[in-house]
C-alpha cells in the first residue's frame, strides 16, 4: 500500500472512528455497557476463538473415525467435545469434501459464520463480491482463491439462511499417514474450512 492509500484510509476511517467512540462513551455513561466487558469480548475474538479451533476439529475428524461418525450425526455435540461451543455455533453441521464433491459455505443475506470454530469472518466473506457470486459462479470464486477443480467434481454451495452453521471438513492431503493431530492441524487453513481453499500440502509445512 502506498502512503497516499494509507492517508486516504486514515481520513475515511476517522469519521466512523469518531462515531464509534461517541457511541461507546454514551452507552457507558448510560450504564448500558461495561467497558471491561467490551474489552473482554474483543480479547476473546482476538486471541482465544479463531480458526485454530476449527483446525483441531478437522484434524480429529481425519484421525479418529469414531469422532468423524459423531461429527456426522451431531456436529454441535462432537465439536463441544473439544471445548468449542456457543455464540454463532449453536447448531453446527459438518460437510465433507472429497475427490468427487466440494462444499462451499456462504451467507448471501448477511454474514452468518461459525464463530466458535472459525472466529470472526474475514472481510471477503462479508463482501458483496463473495456473497453475490458464491451461489451463481462458485468455480469463478474458487479460481480467485487459486483453486481449480475438475469439471467432474460436484460443487455444493450452502447458503446459511437460518441459524445452522456449516464447517467444511477439507480432504486430508496425501502423504500425511501417521501424522499426529497437532501436525495435521497445521495443514488446515481457515479458507479450507469455508470451502474457499484446500488443506495445505505436507511439504508446505516442512
Amino acid at each position, binding site marked *: 500500500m502506498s502512503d497516499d492509500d494509507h492517508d486516504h484510509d486514515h481520513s475515511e476511517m476517522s469519521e466512523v472512528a469518531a462515531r464509534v467512540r461517541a457511541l461507546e462513551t454514551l452507552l457507558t455513561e448510560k450504564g448500558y455497557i461495561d467497558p471491561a*466487558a467490551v474489552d473482554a469480548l474483543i480479547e476473546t475474538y482476538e486471541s482465544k476463538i479463531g480458526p485454530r479451533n476449527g483446525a483441531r476439529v478437522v484434524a480429529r475428524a481425519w484421525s479418529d473415525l469414531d469422532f468423524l461418525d459423531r461429527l456426522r450425526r451431531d456436529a454441535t455435540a462432537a465439536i463441544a467435545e473439544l471445548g468449542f461451543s456457543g455464540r454463532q455455533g*449453536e447448531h453446527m453441521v459438518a460437510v465433507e469434501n472429497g475427490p468427487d464433491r466440494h462444499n462451499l459455505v456462504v451467507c448471501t443475506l448477511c454474514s452468518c459464520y461459525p464463530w466458535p470454530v472459525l472466529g470472526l469472518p*474475514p472481510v471477503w466473506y462479508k463482501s458483496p*463480491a463473495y456473497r453475490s457470486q458464491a451461489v451463481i459462479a462458485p468455480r469463478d470464486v474458487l479460481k480467485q482463491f487459486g483453486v481449480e477443480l475438475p469439471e*467432474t467434481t460436484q460443487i455444493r454451495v450452502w447458503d446459511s439462511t437460518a441459524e*445452522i452453521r456449516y464447517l467444511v471438513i477439507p480432504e486430508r492431503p496425501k502423504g500425511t499417514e501417521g501424522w499426529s493431530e497437532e501436525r495435521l492441524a497445521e495443514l488446515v487453513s481457515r479458507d479450507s474450512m469455508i470451502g474457499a481453499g484446500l488443506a495445505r500440502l505436507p511439504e508446505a509445512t516442512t
Partner: protein
Amino acid sequence: MNGAQDLGGMMGFGPVAPEHEEPIFHAEWERRALGVTLAIGGARLWPGDANRFIRESLPPAEYLSKSYYDIWITALAKMLERKGFVSAEELVAGQALSPGKPLPKVLRADEVASTLALGSRYDRPAPAPARFAAGDKVLTKVINPATHTRLPRYARGKFGVVEAVHGAHVFPDTNAHGLGESPQWLYTVRFEAKHIWGEDADPSLTISIDAFEPYLDPA
C-alpha cells in the same frame, strides 16, 4: 425485505480479492465496534433477528458502500434510538444527557466467557408435526414482504428437494418484528443450479438454503 443485503446472484461487484494474512481487525474502531455491539447484545434488549432487519433496512447505496462493522454500528445507533434507549441529541453529543433506562441485565466482564460459550439456541419444541420429510419435493413460495425474511430472492418460486429436517426453530420473519418466536420447522432444501439460474447453469452445481416451513409448498 428486498434490500441490498439480498445479494445472491447479483453481478458487477468485481473479484472477491481475499487479503493475504488478513488481520482480525483493520482499525482500532473495528475492535470497539465489535465489542460494543456484542456487549449490547448481551443485554438482550431485542433479538438478533431485529438487528438483521435494521441493517438490511439501510438504503441500498449506504449498505453497499459501508464496511461491515460500520453497517453494524450505524444500525445499532438507529435501533437504540428507535427503542428509546438513547436520543438523537445524545448520539450527536456522544454523551448522556439523561440517566439510562434500567436494563434487564448488563453483561459484565466476568460473564463474557460463559455467555459466549453458552450462546443462545434457536431450536424450540415443535408446535405441530413436520409437514415435510427428507426426500420430499418442494416448491418455494413467491413472497415479497416489506418485513424481514430469510428466503432469498434467488430461491423464491423454485423447485427443490428437502435434504435435512432440523427440528423447529425460532422464525425470524416474526421474531424480528416483536411478533414472537412462532417456532417453525426448519429444513435444508437443495436445488439444482438449472432450476435457479437456467439451462446454462453449471451442471455440477447444487445449492441449498435453510428454509422455514412457511416458505415451502409441496411440489
